């Protein structure tokens, strides 16, 4: 549960441009706002990214708002609440202004409500023309076409038979195109999950869509072809299907795939990663190639920010492919595109990953073992430390006790941690078990061939293990 004040959290999520725009909403005569709430905005604005929700912070704000008065929590809450309401109105109105589709649709409805159907109709026709010119004919495009031709159809009089037939054909065709895209996309989501959990599912219309595709529906559409290949990657995960998918994806024209880009990107990337995890060395370099493509096309930024998982993965694959200089440049260029609150820990973790790749294991331990990582980084940083301990042990057997106590400490940490689900902890618990097993077998001076055989067997049974490939590498040394 986030303890931060709601207003502060919303303000912190705004961009610099938005926080400045908010001033005109706060001062708008259409949003009558009591003076203290207006004043509150001006107090918060200069340091809106670092607002303090503690009782001391609130008292300081109260003192600025009402100098000389004794602290009254209820009074302060009212001021906060009033400003929150206006911020929400600001957000809603801004969203509307920035979304042409929603704005024009809303305006058409407003005119209709005033009884001005002709103006409303004109807006819809203009919108239809605008949609028609959109370069990317994807699911959203066909959805808009379906809605607009359907609305125009409803506005027709009963004697306009010819126009009615034309619009009904358009609506029906746009609906089919929309449905084909939506069905295949949803099938991808459903089948991906079923693949992991082995759960039953019902995709009533998928076969009909496939049949319609074979009969010509969206047959020459390269974006839809990508979706079809993506589905094949799940249904019959063959290398040739992947390379056809990769080739089509990497050769997208200047238009790109817009809002579909990231989704299709992860399908290709995840397939390549799965092959590496399955031990296929042909795929070793591919995830980094995918990420480089994603970075060049700016696909990985959503609202100007990068997901920390992508950032960590890029560093991981950069290190794995021994592209240390490229990875360091990446860290330098992109660290600022992560949410502010995780930049420091991601930077430390990334640097430690590079130290690890450079065999500087003591530096890994020195740099991150004392750092208070947040929940998102806690487990993976502990794994990196354990791996470093193990690497040191391989060169210096006097390190055995340190290694054993580190493994046990991590195990005990995992069992004590009640905030995470069992499924969440399982890959780490398995990691500890296998690492312990390797260590015990080595201490017992069992032959490398036997160790390798036993560990491979155990890895195959456990399935979900973090750093699986590294563990397997360690048994062949």
């Amino acid at each position, binding site marked *: *549960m986030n303890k931060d004040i709601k207003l502060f*959290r*919303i303000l*912190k*999520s705004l961009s610099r441009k938005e926080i400045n725009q908010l001033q*005109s909403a706060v*001062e*708008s*005569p*259409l949003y009558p706002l009591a003076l203290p709430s207006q004043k509150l905005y001006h107090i918060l604005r200069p340091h809106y990214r670092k607002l303090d929700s503690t009782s001391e912070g609130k008292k300081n704000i109260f003192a600025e708002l009402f100098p000389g008065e004794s602290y009254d929590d209820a009074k302060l809450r009212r001021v906060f609440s009033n400003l929150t309401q206006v911020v*929400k*109105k*600001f*957000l*809603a*109105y*801004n*969203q*509307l*202004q920035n979304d042409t589709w929603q704005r024009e649709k*809303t*305006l058409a*409805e*407003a*005119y209709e409500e*005033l009884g*001005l159907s002709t*103006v409303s109709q004109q807006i819809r026709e203009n919108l239809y023309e605008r949609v028609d010119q959109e370069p990317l004919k994807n699911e959203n495009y066909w959805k808009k076409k*379906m809605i607009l031709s*359907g609305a125009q*159809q409803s506005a027709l009089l009963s004697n306009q*038979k010819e126009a009615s*037939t034309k619009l*009904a*054909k358009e*609506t*029906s065709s*746009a*609906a089919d195109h929309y*449905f084909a895209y*939506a*069905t295949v996309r*949803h*099938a991808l*989501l459903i089948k991906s*999950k079923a693949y*992991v959990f082995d759960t039953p*599912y019902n*995709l*009533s*219309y998928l076969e*009909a*869509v496939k*049949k*319609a595709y074979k*009969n010509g529906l969206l047959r020459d559409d390269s974006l839809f072809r990508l979706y079809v290949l993506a589905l094949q990657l799940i249904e019959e995960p063959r290398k040739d299907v992947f390379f056809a998918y990769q080739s089509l994806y990497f050769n997208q024209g200047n238009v790109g795939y817009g809002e579909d880009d990231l989704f299709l990107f992860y399908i290709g990337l995840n397939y390549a990663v799965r092959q590496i995890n399955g031990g296929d060395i042909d795929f070793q370099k591919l995830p980094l190639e995918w990420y480089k493509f994603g970075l060049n096309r700016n696909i990985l930024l*959503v609202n100007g*920010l990068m*997901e920390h998982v992508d950032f960590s993965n890029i560093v991981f694959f950069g290190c794995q492919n021994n592209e240390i200089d490229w990875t360091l440049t990446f860290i330098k260029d992109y660290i600022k595109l992560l*949410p502010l609150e995780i930049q420091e820990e991601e930077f430390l973790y990334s640097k430690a990953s590079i130290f690890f790749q450079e065999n500087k294991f003591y530096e890994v331990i020195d740099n991150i073992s004392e750092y208070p990582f947040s929940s998102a980084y806690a487990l993976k940083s502990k794994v990196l430390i354990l791996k470093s301990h193990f690497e040191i042990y391989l060169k210096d057997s006097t390190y055995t006790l340190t290694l054993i106590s580190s493994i046990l400490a991590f195990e005990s940490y995992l069992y004590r941690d009640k905030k995470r689900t069992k499924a969440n902890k399982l890959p780490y618990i398995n990691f500890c078990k296998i690492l312990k097993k390797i260590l015990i077998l080595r201490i017992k001076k069992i032959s490398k061939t036997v160790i390798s055989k036993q560990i491979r067997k155990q890895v195959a049974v456990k399935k979900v293990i973090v750093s699986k490939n590294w563990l397997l590498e360690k048994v062949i040394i």
Partner: protein
Amino acid sequence: MLDDKLFTILRLLSPEHFKKLHRATLSAFHQGNATAEKTYKVLSPYYPQFELSPKDIRKVYRKLFPEKDFNPRKLDKYMNVLLKTTESFLLYLRLESDDYLHEKLVNKAFTHPNLFDLFLKSQAKRHKMLDGREQKDADYWEEKTELYDRLYAHSGHEKYDVNDDTHTQLNESSDRFYMHYKMSSSIILQENEEEAELQKGDILLKEINTAIRRGDYENEALLTQYLLREERTD
């Protein structure tokens, strides 16, 4: 000469809304500015009829541009500025009166990774508002589809939680959303008796009809009605 569209809208505004429009002209956030405000003030005596004689138009012009020769283009430009503010004001009114639309847009703004709990609360509100509607029509399913889609895409959403069924709900909503459009357009085509042959080869339509006949959508009164209408036109 003088924007008909502007006057048509202004005539239709209630006295309360017309008065409020003045506040919009003063609100930079709602595309208000000095030109819009000045034009509003000069035109307001003509509310609600806005029947301006040529003499009135000259009078309006003199008030807007004292000591300048009459130039209809200049006048049109000022009217357009007020029209822009008025359209923004209509959007503002729509947002004030349509709670669902307001929540939908707030929900969209809450897709920021750090606002996931607020996003979920806003989603729950939208679901409740939608489920309170009398009819589960195309619009209802469009909104439901958008809700599940947005939730699924949110970075805070646990896609791989074994109990999560957002993707299934998304798929089922989208199926229904499509079916409303497909069925209504197919009925028109059949009524117009021009598409009988084409309909026979329509794989998707056949599949939907079979599903409805099989009783897969028993609780969807509107979808069943489509089928009944379709059967009547057979």
